[in-house]
């Protein structure tokens, strides 16, 4: 087993199935169970339905509900799981907004799988 603890669930929210698959390929060998959601609304619904989520990795720009709005709604609902943004965006204003909404990290795509797993190991509750 490399990295994380067996069975911890990580919610992966991205409208690109390729990115979700890449994340699954990075996290599964490290012992994490990956739950996929295809946009912010889907991510919010899955987070509300599963109290055992250890953390979430979330895109910013998505249809229906973006990642920052999803975090805001999760916090309003009382969900405290750590959330890291994974996006092509790097604007300081957006990073500040995400941090203010409760994000715990920001990764600019494309991601390095080893560094990502280290971040998940550190943040997953």
């Amino acid at each position: 087993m490399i990295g994380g603890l067996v069975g911890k669930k990580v919610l992966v929210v991205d409208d690109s199935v390729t990115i979700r698959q890449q994340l699954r390929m990075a996290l599964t060998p490290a012992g994490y169970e990956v739950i996929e959601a295809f946009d912010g609304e889907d991510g919010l619904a899955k987070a509300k339905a599963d109290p055992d989520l250890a953390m979430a990795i979330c895109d910013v720009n998505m249809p229906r509900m973006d990642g920052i709005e999803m975090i805001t709604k999760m916090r309003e609902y009382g969900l405290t799981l750590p959330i890291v943004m994974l996006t092509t965006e790097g604007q300081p204003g957006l990073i500040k907004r995400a941090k203010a909404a409760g994000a715990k990290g920001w990764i600019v795509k494309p991601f390095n799988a080893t560094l990502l797993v280290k971040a998940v190991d550190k943040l997953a509750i």
Partner: protein
Amino acid sequence: MLEVSQIIDKISVTVCEGMLPGDFQRAEGDLDEPEDGFVAVIGFSGDTMKGALGVTAPPYAVRATHPLAVDDESLTNDQLYDWLAELSNQLLGRIKGELMSYGVTLWLASPVVLRGVSVRIVPRPQESVHKYTFHGHSGDFCVWVDYQYSASLKLREVPEEEREHCTAGEMLLF
């Protein structure tokens, strides 16, 4: 001071070379127009610049750049459409990141993917379309950036110590 178009050309080529696999080499001029072509288009806008980035390639070339291409034949067309959309998003995201180093802020739209026969880019009269072609064993990739900018735009490199934005691959933990 470099011209805006020179800087965007340099950034675009560097970004494409960084993202496409090694067997895709920069080529001059127009290459093959694929009979069966995939196209991803993503728009952008900002205070001083607006336009769109497009990527055109045949399915085999898209397949060759897919990050999960462990078993090429297992990738469905839907997976290829998704990847081409993501590739265009990441290409433009990197260009946007580089332009932030010159003080330009852009906002990106969501990509759309099209599929067609004998797809080609038709330059508009004002020659705002800048094409960058890459030849690979599996087919040719064409990335094009169509942009207009305000006459007052002057690109000056922001000193490194004053840059606040994150670039591709960077990670911040709060």
